[in-house]
């Protein structure tokens, strides 16, 4: 006759195993993206919506990039009028591709934001398990924060 199953313990063991696997994956799997570009677009009709009094936030006041993985800021103006976008004036249909090679925090004047400033934070490439874990945790927290 089998002893009775201790279901809470089994559930805890399953959760612990899943958590450990997730941590191991986050620490050991190299960070990779299909592209090094972090794109932001001004959609068509943005200017008209602003003129109508709607608040349109396209570019966050703080952008995070990572060297060697996602270290190029790509701004694209798909609207019909010139726009100040991030650090620069962009014509309709124009794109601006800004690469970063040094980990640092970059301040740009940006009239699109209430503060008048935009910050691009460029992190070092997470090359060790611990750094990968921290990098993924921070990214997840930022995603939750932005949602």
């Amino acid at each position, binding site marked *: 006759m089998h002893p009775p199953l201790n279901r809470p313990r089994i559930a805890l063991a399953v959760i612990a195993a899943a958590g450990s696997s997730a941590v191991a994956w986050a620490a050991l799997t190299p960070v990779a993206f299909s592209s090094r570009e972090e794109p932001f677009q001004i959609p068509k009709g943005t200017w008209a919506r602003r003129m109508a009094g709607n608040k349109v936030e396209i570019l966050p006041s703080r952008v995070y990039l990572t060297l060697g993985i996602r270290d190029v800021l790509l701004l694209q103006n798909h609207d019909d009028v010139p726009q100040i976008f991030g650090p620069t004036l962009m014509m309709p249909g124009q794109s601006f*591709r800004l690469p970063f090679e040094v980990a640092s925090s970059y301040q740009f004047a940006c009239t699109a934001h209430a503060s008048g400033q935009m910050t691009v934070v460029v992190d070092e490439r997470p090359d060790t398990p611990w750094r990968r874990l921290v990098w993924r945790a921070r990214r997840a927290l930022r995603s939750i924060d932005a949602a």
Partner: protein
Amino acid sequence: MPPPFPCSAWRWARRGLPALAGLLLLTAAHGAPAEPLKAGVFDPARDAPDFSLQGSDGKALTLSGYRGKVVLLGFGYTSCLNVCPVTLAVLAAARHKLGPMAAQVQVVYLTVDPERDSAGRLNEFLASFDADFVGGTGTAAQMAAVRKSYGVTAEKVGTGADYSVAHSSFVYLITRDGKLRALMPYGHTADDYAHDLSVLLH
């Protein structure tokens, strides 16, 4: 029995193949992607807005007057204590690194403080970095119009004679044919500028 390799075909191969190889090499070189710039790049590049201002050398200053040269266009002012002197020192060092090619590069620095920056004052300030730098000044309205056309911001901070000006600190890279190709944010090194200038000059 016909020869396995007719004479005419052999002649064609001897003469034609090297020519074909040369053509392929030329095509490959022409079609090869340009080396990426360190600066932020506009695509497509638009015509850089022209201007007509008073030059620090006492002559009229127009951007179109420098067609044929690569122009580094910056905005700043002579009373600036940090960003402008650093930027100008970097630009001077970059030109120095280019050696003889520096003659094909023109630095144009437009004031964001026309109240205080006369042509003479600009000339003295810029000459302390590089005698070939050219400055530009004009009325407040003229300078504001130029800034607007490039998307440059400038705002007076403080009052009295010791006010400062908070301004965009980018340098625009303008090609020989007058296209606004790229924008270098503040903080890049003279090596980065020399790299990009070499790309644009070739």
